[in-house]
């Protein structure tokens, strides 16, 4: 019960926070909708945990809670993959930038 209340409170807090950031133009509408959708579903699942069982049964997983964990892990791994790719790209760009500065500021004692 405590955990449910905590989840709902946190979900609402996250939604409020995102709306505030959207108003301050710190995040785009896309992110606002995405985060709201995510946290709304968290709140719904917290309120009615049995809803996930229906979905779980449909896709062939025993319990709704298990399904949530599986989905979460898949999303997490994919996010890490995306971040790694991006970091690799930024590393390359950083090298290019450092190289450009080095070439422009080359010096020699006369």
């Amino acid at each position: 019960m405590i955990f449910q209340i905590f989840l709902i409170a946190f979900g609402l807090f996250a939604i409020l926070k995102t709306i505030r950031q959207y108003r301050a133009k710190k995040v785009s509408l896309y992110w606002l909708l995405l985060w709201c959708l995510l946290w709304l579903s968290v709140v719904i699942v917290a309120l009615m945990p049995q809803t996930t069982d229906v979905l779980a049964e449909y896709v062939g997983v025993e319990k709704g809670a298990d399904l949530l964990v599986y989905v979460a892990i898949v999303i997490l791994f994919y996010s890490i993959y995306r971040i790694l790719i991006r970091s690799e790209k930024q590393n390359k760009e950083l090298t290019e930038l450092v190289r450009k500065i080095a070439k422009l500021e080359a010096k020699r004692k006369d």
Partner: protein
Amino acid sequence: MKIVAIIPAYNEEERVAAAIADAARFVDDVVVVDDCSKDRTGEAAFESGAYLLQHVINRGQGAALQTGTEFALEYLGADIVIHFDADGQMCGEDIEAVTEPIIKGEASVVLGSRFLGARSNMPLGRWLTLRCGLLFTAMVSGIKVTDTHNGFRALSRNAAQDIKITIDRMAHASEILDLIKAKKLVYVERPVKIRYSEETLAKGQSFFGAFIVIKDFFKAKFFDEL
């Protein structure tokens, strides 16, 4: 023929001046790329009269070599680029031997080798690691050389333009071999002497370092194309 030596240097304050002086006797210009050293490597190189290029953020030896090579090609109009070490392991006298095939038009890439002629005082552990490197390179890059991770090499202007090092860290040596094969560059090997001392051994590639090289190489080969 304008010959330019590229010396990537990281924390080589004590040794870089000697390396510059050693190489300078056999080349037209020396370019030192200070890879954001924590000591006074940059000042030491500048005082020695070399061109000094400084990475404002440490990017690794491969990146430093590429920076120096681009500078030599674009700003100094180099005809031959030499990759040389800052730590005094290499001998300037060998520069003549590695540039000769390019001057004569026999090859566009000359690779230094520690195993041809066997003139070095190489420790056994290092020998074994390097032999494994050969096997690895022959399998992945399909190029047969006697020494894969020798940093001593000479590139003709065209070869230097063709070989763009994208692996910033140590695996760039494998990448260069890969590119030689891919771009169908004519290469030869020449024996060079590498001096091993306690000091340079501590800084060089350890056996475990080899795993990082392999990881970086595979990452660049397969992962970066995504």
